[in-house]
């Protein structure tokens, strides 16, 4: 087993230095450790026990739970902040027409943000890779769906995804291998809604999920605790920490509370070292042959900009000036109503089924596609808040909570922004983190493409609510963030207008890979994690090939 070398002063050298310990960093580290390379993983945040997150969530106030405070239960390293919203810590400065739509909830902790995801494991559609050539909007990827498809399969296998074996329920249907496990069975509500809306073209399908109904290897079966977000209490949901542990079992070493802030390059612009601050603000150096930045869509571009050096004055990997630009997320809205019959959402995992009818079509020349998740998080808390507002007490209150919890429907709707260089992450000139490093600022405008898409959504939601005898239909008026951060280190064939190539290798630095959501040139409307993981595995293969050629 190859191990990194540590000096007595705490510096380290390894074949591969991975910055970031989430799903992408963990998978890349695991692949390369398995191939016999020494790997060190640097993570800015803390390493804590699941039990601590579980207890913090259980002890959280009703208000925070009701309003989905998925960040507050994860203790932060004092030197590595991440966004908090109860109350806001303004770590990320937001501006622009839709700045408030970019309130991302990401974690800086060993294991990363998949601690509090919902385990939706979607693939992009083949058309999502060719937005420009098919629909004349956005950008094409540097790779086709077919080139990424084998890595989608591998990512699904790594994460133990349950998805429909029935082709008619797959989105997309282009697959070379079946899902490792068949779909999580529909709950009553999913079945009932499908019966009602599918005849009208809405196409409700099961969400492919990183969990299973029977043990997946040593991972336990899901038993429907229904608080996948913000923490699966039993480890039945895939978490990035699982690949960190796998990588460690093969010799990789994780250093927590290691905030990387500087990147050294040589005369050929190869990366030679990264520097980090430890928990005592002492600086250390990690030298290596190959470097991987996997700090998700905000911290990666921030680090590239922070690490500007004499040879790379606009930031590392930024000769194109595209680092931090094209910031995207599935800006979305929620639609809620009371159906005229009990549907009992809230049994099983937090996400179960999704309407994908409006995912693709020629309309995408003009306006955004969408997908509508039939939110399966228990409706008891919102039902209680609504019933209390009615001033009810005693049995009447109980009955009303029960009625609203049983009949309540919440659609979480995602739209697809286009990559826009003006949607940009920059370094704050005024705000610094406790280490004196500039905080990120983000300017964001969802764009007319999304605004027009929302008009279509409104029409569709009204039709769905109508079919279900819905009352009290509410569609939120502000766009909300979905934590699917994309674009900041965008992929392309041309080094002049993109940051990385089709393997997520930096155009500017032959031994630097930047896999993950930041590379994605189109957002599609589906959750990004599986695509991020597939890009990570593709990058890992290209790193292995580079080692084999002696170029890593």
């Amino acid at each position, binding site marked *: 087993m190859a191990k990194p070398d540590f000096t007595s002063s705490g510096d380290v050298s390894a074949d591969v230095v991975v910055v970031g310990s989430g799903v992408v960093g963990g998978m890349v580290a695991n692949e390369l450790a398995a191939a016999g390379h020494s790997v060190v993983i640097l993570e800015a945040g803390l390493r804590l*026990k*699941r*039990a*601590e997150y*579980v*207890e913090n969530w*259980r*002890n959280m106030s009703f208000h925070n739970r009701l309003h989905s405070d998925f960040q507050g239960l994860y203790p932060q390293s004092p030197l590595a902040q991440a966004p908090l919203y109860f109350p806001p810590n303004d770590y990320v400065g937001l501006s622009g027409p839709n700045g408030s739509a970019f309130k991302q909830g990401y974690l800086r902790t060993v294991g990363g943000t998949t601690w509090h995801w919902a385990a939706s494991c979607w693939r992009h559609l083949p058309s999502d890779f060719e937005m420009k050539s098919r629909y004349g909007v956005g950008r094409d990827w540097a790779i086709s769906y077919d080139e990424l498809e084998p890595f989608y399969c591998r990512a699904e296998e790594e994460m133990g995804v349950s998805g429909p074996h029935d082709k008619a329920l797959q989105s997309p249907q282009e697959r070379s291998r079946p899902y490792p496990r068949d779909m999580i069975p529909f709950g009553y509500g999913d079945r009932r809604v499908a019966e009602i809306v599918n005849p009208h073209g809405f196409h409700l399908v099961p969400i492919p999920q990183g969990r299973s109904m*029977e*043990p997946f290897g*040593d*991972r*336990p*079966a899901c*038993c429907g*605790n229904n608080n996948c977000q913000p923490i699966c*209490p*039993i*480890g*039945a949901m895939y978490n990035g920490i*699982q690949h960190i*542990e*796998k990588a*460690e*079992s093969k010799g990789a070493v994780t250093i927590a509370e290691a905030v990387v802030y500087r990147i050294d390059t040589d005369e050929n612009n190869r990366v030679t070292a990264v520097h980090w601050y430890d928990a005592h603000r002492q600086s250390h150096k990690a030298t290596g042959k190959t470097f991987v930045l996997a700090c998700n869509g905000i911290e990666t571009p921030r680090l590239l900009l922070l690490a500007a050096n004499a040879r790379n004055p606009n930031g590392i990997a930024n000769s194109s000036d595209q680092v931090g630009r094209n910031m995207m997320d599935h800006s979305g809205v929620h639609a809620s109503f009371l159906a005229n019959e009990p549907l009992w959402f809230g049994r099983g995992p937090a996400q179960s089924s999704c309407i994908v009818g409006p995912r693709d079509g020629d309309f995408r020349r003009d306006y955004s596609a969408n997908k509508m998740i039939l939110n399966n998080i228990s409706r008891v808390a919102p039902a209680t808040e609504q019933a209390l507002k009615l001033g009810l007490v005693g049995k009447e209150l109980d009955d009303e909570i029960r009625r609203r919890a049983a009949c309540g429907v919440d659609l979480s709707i995602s739209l697809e922004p286009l990559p826009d260089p003006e949607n940009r992450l920059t370094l704050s000139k005024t705000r610094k983190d406790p280490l004196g490093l500039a905080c990120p600022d983000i300017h964001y405008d969802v764009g007319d493409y999304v605004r027009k898409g929302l008009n279509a959504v409104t029409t569709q939601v009204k039709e769905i609510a109508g079919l279900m005898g819905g009352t009290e239909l509410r569609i939120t008026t502000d766009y909300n963030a979905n934590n699917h951060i994309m674009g900041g280190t965008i992929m392309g064939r041309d080094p002049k207008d993109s940051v990385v190539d089709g393997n997520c290798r930096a155009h500017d630095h032959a031994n630097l890979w930047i896999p993950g959501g930041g590379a994605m040139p189109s957002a599609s409307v589906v959750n990004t994690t599986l695509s991020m993981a597939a890009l990570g595995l593709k990058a890992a293969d290209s790193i292995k090939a580079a080692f084999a050629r002696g170029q890593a």
Partner: protein
Amino acid sequence: MKQKHRINPPLSGAFALAAATVLGFCTSAYAQSNGPDRNIAQRGHYLAIAADCAACHTAPGSTQPFAGGYGIASPLGSIYSTNITPSKEHGIGNYTEKEFAHALREGIRRDGAHLYPAMPYTSYTKLTDDDVHALYVYFMSEVKPVESTPQKTALPFPYNIRASMGIWNALFLDDTRFRPDPSKSAEVNRGHYLSYALAHCDTCHTPRNAMMAEKGASPLAGASLSSWYAPNITSDPVSGIGGWSSEDLFRYLKTGDVPGKAQAGGPMAEAIEHSFQYLDDADIRAMVSYIKQVPAISDSKDKAARESYGKASGRESVYRGLPANRISRGEYLFSGECAACHRPTGQGSPDGYYPQLFHNTAVGAPIADNLITTILMGVRREVNGHTTYMPGFGPGSYVDSLSDQDIADISNYVEQNFGNPNVRVTPDDVKLIRSGGPKPLIARLGALTVPAIIVALAGLALAIFFFIRLSRKAKA
């Protein structure tokens, strides 16, 4: 999903012919036999299940039955099971029936080398000639040859001297066939035969002496088994299973799950998964009849039956909302790591998939080995095609990797609230279990002492041998 073989019971011959006709689907591609030999081979198949050959000789998760390669944890090191398929090069394809019997009963391979008693020949020696024949026919005609040799056992010196097992056998192997006890019913005798000659219950449940031989004076009184503890299963109502009904025991052997009493984990779960669940109900009932009349062996330290301890907890309302430093670490960790499944009350889930913690033998036992091991390694049991699974909390756990201190804290909380309040667990206890459990004297002794003991025992064996010869001569 495991294929379920339902084959006529060997010991209730009345069904044999009828069943053999019905069960024609068992014909395998490798069957060379037909007619009466088919029946014998089918009986041999059933016997191989009852003897649980696959538990060791089929590696977990392997698709190659009886190809070996499973590392059996022993206090002396891993002992790897061998390929017992009829491959001539890698398996037992060249064995004559006599050689097969010799290995099965005396623990001596075709090449004359001794087996370690991880292979329970000390039990199989009780097999009848007919059953050995049936097993031989089955292995030779129905098992698919696998052309590969699994990892070889390499115990450290001096345990790698297989010849020393000859002396051990002279001292400890009772090389005689099963003899029914005419004072017992046919069912009890059948159960006795099944439990010893085939299921080899004694291999785990009978304590062993300093040389790792079973103590003849305390059969089934409970023994340490690497990290697990195979409890006292004599009929004593406090120390053993005397308080269990026949129905409880039947259900336990068939499913490994008796709500409110016990759930099988570790090697017992394997025995149920690979063997007992497939046995004929009549055979399981015979084993129950036998076990229920095994003479009670009581330990005066045991105050109450292990399944009698504990009750539901109401503690959550006391600790919920308190910061971590205001509640005990055991309670905090129990709540965060365990209570999502076993519930804060310890009642488990209504369907019993997550068992209740009180009135649970693993928690109420006088020693915490099985509680600690369950936390460390989890439980996996596949019965009727359905997997019951609890993840372990050892290194690489999908839930959390817990330290020795963490597991000691949780164990003490669980014992105090749901189990045997006299039990205390220290981090060193957990460390010992993590490293493979308590070691017998022979494994603790240094490399120099053991050869000395072997030489001394050899002398002793020789002396006994000559003494017997002399006395026989004297009688003659």
